[in-house]
């Protein structure tokens, strides 16, 4: 972003485009909040065996990333997980 852009108000068409992009990410991932919650709980269960994790700071979501096999800049959905570790369990 250029410095001058900070002072420029977004046009309504830019707002529309940005909102659409966000809404289509969740539409396309076909992942309801309930399913996401279950995925999150299952991942936590598995990790608990080996690690002590910070469940408050846990962040799991579906985002779009550039498709590496495709050079035309197309995007594909990806599961993004940021899981803070409190400590490693010993002898796990």
């Amino acid at each position, binding site marked *: 972003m250029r410095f001058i852009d900070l002072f420029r108000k977004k046009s*309504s*068409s830019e707002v529309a*485009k940005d909102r*659409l992009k966000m809404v289509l990410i969740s*539409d*396309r991932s076909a992942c309801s909040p309930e399913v996401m919650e279950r995925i999150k709980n299952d991942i936590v269960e598995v990790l608990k065996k080996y690690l002590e994790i910070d469940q408050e700071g846990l962040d799991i979501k579906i985002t779009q990333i550039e498709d590496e096999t495709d050079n035309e800049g*197309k995007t594909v959905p990806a599961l993004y997980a940021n899981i803070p570790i409190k400590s490693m369990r010993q002898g796990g």
Partner: protein
Amino acid sequence: MGEVIVVTSGKGGVGKTTTTANIGTGLAKLNKKVVLVDTDIGLRNLDVVLGLENRIVYNLVDAVEGNCKVSQALIKDKKCDGLYLLPAAQTRDKDAVTPDQMKVLVEELRKDFDYIILDCPAGIEQGFKNAIAAADRALVVTTPEVSAVRDADRIIGLLEANDIKNVRLIVNRLNVEMVKHGNMMTAQDVVEVLSIDLIGVVPYDEKIVISTNTGTPLAGDDSIVGQAYMNLCHRIMGEEVEYLDLESKKGFFAKIGGLFNK
């Protein structure tokens, strides 16, 4: 053997029926034999857009159920040689026809026509499933609005899931003035968001309202919209046609206005 094209959108009111009528008229003017099939059973509209509402005797459901021959249900257009309409039934509902029955009907029409164009109902229920069952390719109509584009994205996903690989986008009712002021997405914006290929851009024009008032499609006349539809028809036939430069086609008053804006 003819090609079967479904015109669909997901959201209602974006101009599927008007687009279907104009594509039919345009292709017929390019000397193709075309049949337009109104698959919106219960909410018949393509007949009035074409100005053929007084000529209906039999309809799609009659043809499917064998109450008449398919050829008896076809209505010849008043003005355009080579253009025919198979109207929807008005007093039945979407479940009166199954996807398999649509396939049989379309196979019969394929023998006699170059293009079979199916006007799909809004929504993603039975009527949509019937319309796409027999289609070789699809044209997705959207307007540059958040709700219409979102629904278009859903439709594109469903078409792909049903193995329709040739899916192209028509951006309808593009308001050039609003685009210039940054208050409407451009056709390129919509293409970028949906990531499918464009086949036509139709600008907003009051002439469309007038043409539906009188039941006379505009494709092929000298208006900008008429030209846009004709270019779309050439692209459907596989020809490469440049997109109209909508911005430079200013009227006298817009030019005068431009002097003061500087």
